[in-house]
């Protein structure tokens, strides 16, 4: 044993004796391996041709039923199978070739030192210093400083040009929704107004402002919807512990019918699960839980703020309408939020 150069105190073993393979010793075994490799390549070619035939001849709307996986598209399945196996066979053939028929005797290559020779480094430093001196970059402060100043300024227009990536967030978008005093609450999807007295105790109604449809048509985006969606529930008035506002003369509910934002105050998932026994609203994203009978308070989870309540009442025909917009911003937090 010779000491290893990395750890002079560690022994370095001599190379082990080489184990010859059957293909090294026996010409017949080698020929067999050759045939196996060629067989794999031929199989591959066949499979690739099949995959093209599948593309051309299988009706692309057929689906086939498979155990476990269920219904799958026929082209997808058969092409994936034949093309995939075909490509795999090329790989297996090449690897088999390398392992069986190419030399398996390991060779040794020496490593070279990465660090340069000291005199080369010195020469580099000299060359660099000479170049810098000749440029007068160091000696002429006025040129250097003005160059650095100009260089520091030149990217600014490139940054300024990004200004129109978006509007300023202080345009009220974060603090207002399209709810206004008198806007009717309509059911989502069907856009039907909701009779205050007909809201059953227990159930949850997904609602939007009646103005939403026209605004969406005009803006062509989902922005208004993303903030204005609400849930309407009716809770037995005796069970309501607190609300976020309202007075005896102008309550925020209508006979126990309450409207809350549907947008989680955590990171904005729409909330969908309502447990009528506990009056809890549960967010499917990170399980924040809000108590709708108690001013939308957070009872569990990572959300920090109550679910904002929309003040509502009824109009002359008895349909639910908003008394105003939300009194606090809906949805996730932001720095400017007071």
């Amino acid at each position: 044993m010779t000491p290893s150069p990395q750890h002079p105190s560690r022994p370095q073993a001599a190379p082990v004796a080489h184990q010859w393979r059957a293909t090294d010793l026996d010409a017949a075994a080698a020929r067999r391996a050759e045939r196996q490799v060629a067989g794999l390549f031929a199989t591959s070619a066949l499979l690739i041709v099949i995959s093209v035939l599948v593309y051309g001849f299988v009706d692309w709307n057929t689906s086939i039923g498979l155990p476990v996986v269920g219904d799958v598209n026929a082209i997808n399945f058969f092409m994936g199978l034949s093309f995939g196996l075909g490509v795999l066979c090329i790989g297996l053939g090449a690897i088999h070739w390398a392992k069986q028929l190419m030399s398996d005797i390991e060779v040794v290559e020496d490593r070279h030192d990465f660090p340069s020779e000291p005199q080369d480094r010195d020469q580099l430093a000299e060359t660099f210093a000479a170049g810098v001196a000749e440029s007068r970059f160091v000696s002429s402060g006025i040129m250097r400083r003005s160059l650095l100043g100009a260089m520091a300024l030149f990217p600014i227009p490139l940054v300024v040009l990004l200004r129109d990536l978006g509007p300023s967030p202080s345009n009220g978008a974060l603090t207002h929704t399209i709810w206004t005093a008198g806007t009717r609450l309509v059911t989502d999807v069907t856009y039907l107004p909701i009779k205050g007295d007909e809201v059953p105790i227990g159930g949850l109604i997904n609602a939007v402002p009646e103005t939403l449809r026209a605004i969406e048509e005009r803006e062509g985006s989902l922005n208004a919807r993303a903030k204005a969606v609400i849930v309407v529930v009716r809770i037995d008035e005796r069970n309501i512990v607190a609300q976020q506002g309202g007075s005896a003369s102008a309550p925020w509910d209508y006979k126990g019918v309450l409207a809350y934002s549907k947008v989680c105050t955590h990171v904005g998932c729409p909330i969908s699960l309502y447990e009528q026994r506990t009056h809890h609203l549960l967010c499917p994203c990170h399980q924040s839980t809000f108590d709708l009978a108690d001013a939308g308070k957070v009872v569990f989870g990572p959300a920090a703020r109550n679910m904002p309540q929309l003040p509502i009442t009824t109009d002359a025909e008895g349909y639910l309408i908003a008394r105003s917009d939300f009194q606090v911003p809906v949805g996730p937090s932001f720095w400017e939020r007071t």
Partner: protein
Amino acid sequence: MTPTTPLGRTAVALDQRFGGAKFMKKTFNKVFPDHWSFMLGEIALYSFIVLLLSGVYLTLWFKPSMTEVVYNGSYMPLHGVKMSEAYASTLNISFDVRGGLLMRQIHHWAALFFVASISVHMLRVFFTGAFRKPRELQWIIGLVLLVLAVIEGFAGYSLPDDLLSGTGLRISQALMQASPVFGSWMAFFVFGGEFPGLDFIPRLYMVHVLLIPLIFLGLIGAHVGMVAYQKHTQYPGPGRTNRNVVGFPLLPVYIAKAGGFFFAVFGVIILLGGLVTINPVWLFGPYVPDQVSAGSQPDWYMGFLDGAVRMMPNWELHLWDHTLSLNIMIPGMILPVVMLAVVGAYPWLEAWATRRTGEHHLLDRPRNVPTRTALGAAFLSFYLVLFIESGNDLIAAAFHLSINQITIAFRVMIFLVPVFVFWLTKRIALSLQRRDVDRLLHGNESGRLLRLPHGEFIEVHAPLNERDLARLSANPGLAPIEAPAATDDAGHPTPGLRVKRLQARVSHFFYGDRIVPPSVEEIEAAQAQLQSGHEPHGELTQH
């Protein structure tokens, strides 16, 4: 010699213009060591190539637009439904472009392979110490590639604008918006105003198909180029030293093996794309901000962040008319940045606490550097606790537990589990080392019993073979750095004493618990004795 073949003539023509015959000769003779764990990085490279190929196909049909259209393609359940063009064109690729679904699924599977293989490759590099000098930069490039791969994967997952990915986008937008000072500006600039707006998908598309792939190409090129230039590391074994590379030459063995492996990886990804449905966006429906699919889960590599967000207590500060959302910032921003910083800085931290500063081309067996291995395992367990927490609702449903209790339990486990895993891993590594020493000094148990003349039974121990001998004796047996005295012999205070003491303390944390490996002489003597059939009596030393 004048070439006679077309190939030879082309080579000469090229050489007349660029030179490089010597360089090519060297390249063909370049040696690559062989080990299964070296293929992990190859999988990453090959799945990247598959991503480029399949991605180009998808761009031919995908329309990155949020303009609302009414779907009238051949997927009946969504007929007449309003949706973005992005989602409609994804449906089109899945149902009306022949083989389009196959390409989509190949692309998605390749993306999962890409992120997974980079992760596992980095674990291999970490646990074997391949990140040490002179390869620290490779470690950093790898880390950047991992982060980009996750971002790129998330971007690709978001582009179809289905209900599942839209929910993910909403969460990332809120994360952005909740950052202090510039948060809402950032969110408004990225989304062109309020969420969801009309600008985001086209912008994301540019990032997904141009910006990040270009960075990928540059970094992967640098990464692979540096592997070739610095030569590959190797595991300790017979004839392998820190000064050589033992393995197979590029031409022909390595070209055949690596080339074959590329086709094997490609083939497996195609098979998965054909046979295993992934991300069936048509089942989720188009994104609408007021709907969510219950139990929605992100792609696996985002899981740990989701878990961190779920686990976080709901702290939010209201200061001087401003809101600081610690409940979002800590898990969503500070935690990943700290995790990345720790991983990125690790090579320098370990080098600082280690006496040897030379080049390292011989890999460590994980047991031989117990503290590093234990730190890696602790980090992994930390990651896994976060990951499992991201399925807290599934766990609750499966085991009929309350989500609240699970979450509270995870809040405790996130601190306790890594500490326990650290301790346990270190103990295991040290006892494995002890067993190695035992085999070096006493040989292998042969299972053969011998009865001595006075009636006692002993088991015959056999000498180790060359391979084991080389492997087991490769323990560098690193010892901690000791703190210098406060003053030197002449009574002058030692410069930088505070830092040196800290260094010694960190070094003791790394190498304080150790098994001193036997010396060359001890091993040689023991093995020689085993050869001659006598039982040696070396002693096991521990500090």
